[in-house]
């Protein structure tokens, strides 16, 4: 019976298609998905992983039969972590490659360049890794945020954790001068003020790419904090934490979510012991949890020649989010259009492909997929979960009513 209905549906679609404008990127047997991320330049570890994770998911989906009888074809463009090139990439994907949906596995820095254009074009834009606020506020029908959560949400969780877990009254903040770290720092400061009436005892900035943090650390040391919150990249965190130890700074470090990654331990070695942060995924690569080892084995089979440090968090995020996107396309049914996809995604509640991903929920009011993060600590060179849950309700969703 199902087969008959499916055949009838397909026949109807085949008849209907020539009668009105065909949905771009969708044919009878193929859905074309476009994506962009940095695969060259200093942020390549994000884009290469994002691409590989996404492609692994696509391969699995296609092998299992595709989506409603259609296979997924992927086109990937490099954005070099630059907003201008991200804009060029999405332009090409939408206008030249005529993709159905664009997925961003790039960083905030680059994605902000493409957001206005995607809003204008109305093509569904699913942002997996970037946390730039513009993606979800002001609300746009065709934009979705997947893996990373809102920057404001980071601020909420970090502030609450610093105040209640560390029980810190004196907090020092070190943040890098780029979109993402600066947003994290600002959001944390904001929530510390509004929720806990605390102001940081020191707020210092550094440049991304700095190799020496002595001046900043000296200032932090002078302020005698209970904990040091660091927002930047793993490479800088590693140097800063090592130099802190050398200067005799004994306070614990708390790092932003993009540093809760095996890369930090690889870069910092012993200095990273005891560092805490929030993770976007339940298990980090290298964890002994059975689901994780299974997933990693499958990944290594697909990518046997990958360099050290892979798979990393971005492989997992993109993998999980591609499945979410695919789920949306599946629920949209045979008549796959922008509208039907948006509607289907908005109906998704607590969906995830497996325990290696965190669940996603969308609604008609907002497209913020992930509001939960997992606190972790570095123990014996490995990130382990910490027992702590947030007791406060998020303020973010209030503005969507």
């Amino acid at each position, binding site marked *: 019976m199902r087969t008959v209905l499916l055949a009838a549906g397909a026949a109807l679609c085949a008849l209907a298609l020539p009668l009105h404008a065909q949905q771009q990127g969708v044919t009878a047997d193929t859905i074309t998905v476009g994506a962009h991320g940095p695969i060259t330049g200093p942020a390549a*570890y994000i884009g290469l992983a994002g691409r590989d994770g996404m492609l692994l998911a696509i391969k699995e989906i296609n092998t299992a039969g595709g989506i409603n009888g259609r296979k997924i074809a992927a086109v990937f463009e490099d954005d070099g972590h630059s907003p201008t090139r991200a804009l060029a990439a999405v332009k090409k994907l939408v206008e030249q490659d005529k993709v159905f949906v664009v997925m961003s596995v790039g960083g905030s820095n680059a994605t902000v360049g493409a957001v206005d254009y995607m809003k204008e074009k109305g093509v569904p834009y699913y942002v997996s890794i970037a946390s730039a606020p513009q993606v979800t506020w002001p609300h746009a029908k065709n934009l979705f945020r997947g893996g990373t959560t809102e920057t404001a949400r980071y601020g909420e969780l970090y502030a609450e954790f610093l105040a209640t877990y560390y029980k810190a009254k004196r907090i020092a903040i070190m943040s890098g001068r780029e979109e993402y770290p600066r947003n994290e720092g600002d959001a944390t400061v904001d929530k510390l003020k509004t929720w806990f009436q605390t102001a940081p005892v020191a707020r210092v900035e550094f440049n991304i790419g700095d190799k020496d943090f*002595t001046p900043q650390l000296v200032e932090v040391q002078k302020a005698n904090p209970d904990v040091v919150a660091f927002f930047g990249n793993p490479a800088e965190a*590693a140097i800063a934490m090592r130099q802190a130890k050398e200067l005799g700074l004994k306070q614990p470090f708390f790092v932003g979510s993009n540093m809760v990654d095996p*890369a930090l331990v690889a870069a910092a070695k012993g200095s990273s012991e005891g560092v805490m942060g929030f993770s976007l995924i339940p298990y980090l690569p290298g964890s002994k949890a059975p689901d994780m080892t299974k997933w990693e084995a499958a990944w290594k089979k697909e990518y046997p020649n990958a360099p*050290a440090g892979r798979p990393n968090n971005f492989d997992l995020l993109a993998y999980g989010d591609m499945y979410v996107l695919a789920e949306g396309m599946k629920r949209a049914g045979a008549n796959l259009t922008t509208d039907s996809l948006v509607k289907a995604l908005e109906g998704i509640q607590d969906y995830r492909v497996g325990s290696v991903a965190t669940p996603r929920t969308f609604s008609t009011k907002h497209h913020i997929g992930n509001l939960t993060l997992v606190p972790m600590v570095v123990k014996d060179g490995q990130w382990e979960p910490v027992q702590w849950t947030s007791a406060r309700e998020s303020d973010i969703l209030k503005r969507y009513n």
Partner: protein
Amino acid sequence: MTTTLALQLAIAGLSVGSIYALVALAIVIPFKASGVLNFGQGEIVTFGAYAALVLTQLALPYPIVLACVVALGAVGGIAIERVLIRPIVKAPEFTLVIATFAIGLLIKGAISVRFGDSPNTIDGPFGGEPIVAAGLRFNPTSLWIFGCTLLVTFAVIAFFRHTRLGKAMRAVSVSPEAAKLMGIRVDRVYRWSWAISTAIGALAGLLVAPLIGINPEIGQLILRGLLGAVIGGFTSIPGAVVGGLAVGLIETFSGVLIGSAFKNLVPFVLLMLLLVFRPYGLFGAADVQRV
């Protein structure tokens, strides 16, 4: 600023300055000998760091790793000189500048593709526990780097003053024509000046890796090395070392005095001022004439 703070900053400045000094040294040596400025020297340092990474992951002991990195650096330099520099050594300066730039980028690109951009590191040979003395904290790796830099500097000075090859290099730098007439094999001199330079650069990569980590962007520090070479005046060996150390100190202190916003401007403004008013630096002699 308290004395303790100033001294602590000075230690940090000298430690990072030692690396700049080695890079400056590596730049000045082939320049003195053959008039070629290797803009790709930063990537030689990157290469040294990654070579150290690979060798360390093979569980080789540190002294072996050090010897291998130096040897690999030298071999690499000879290869570059033979294959890429020799055909254009008579070309105008523009070609050499851009070519060495391009060689550096190729090395960086190859490293990026092979190793990815994830940060890595290796441990220093003496562990990470700081040595506390006289109220100051010394990072053992920094002391080791400083010591190596001094050793290399004295070795190079001795080389130029007392060995045949060293004296031959000095002769060639004054006049390749006359040197040739004296029976000196000029091409051999060029080759060895490159080998020494890249060996020093690779060594710098090994030394600096525990301090700043291993990633393809390490080569950026060539800008600081160049500034050190300019301060020293491109033709003076001790000048290059002093220049590099000075850059390290300037960088560290300007971070505290100016704040991180504009501290990155200081080296380049200094570079421009020096080039305009004292291009021969504080130690250099008149411009080396190329054939």
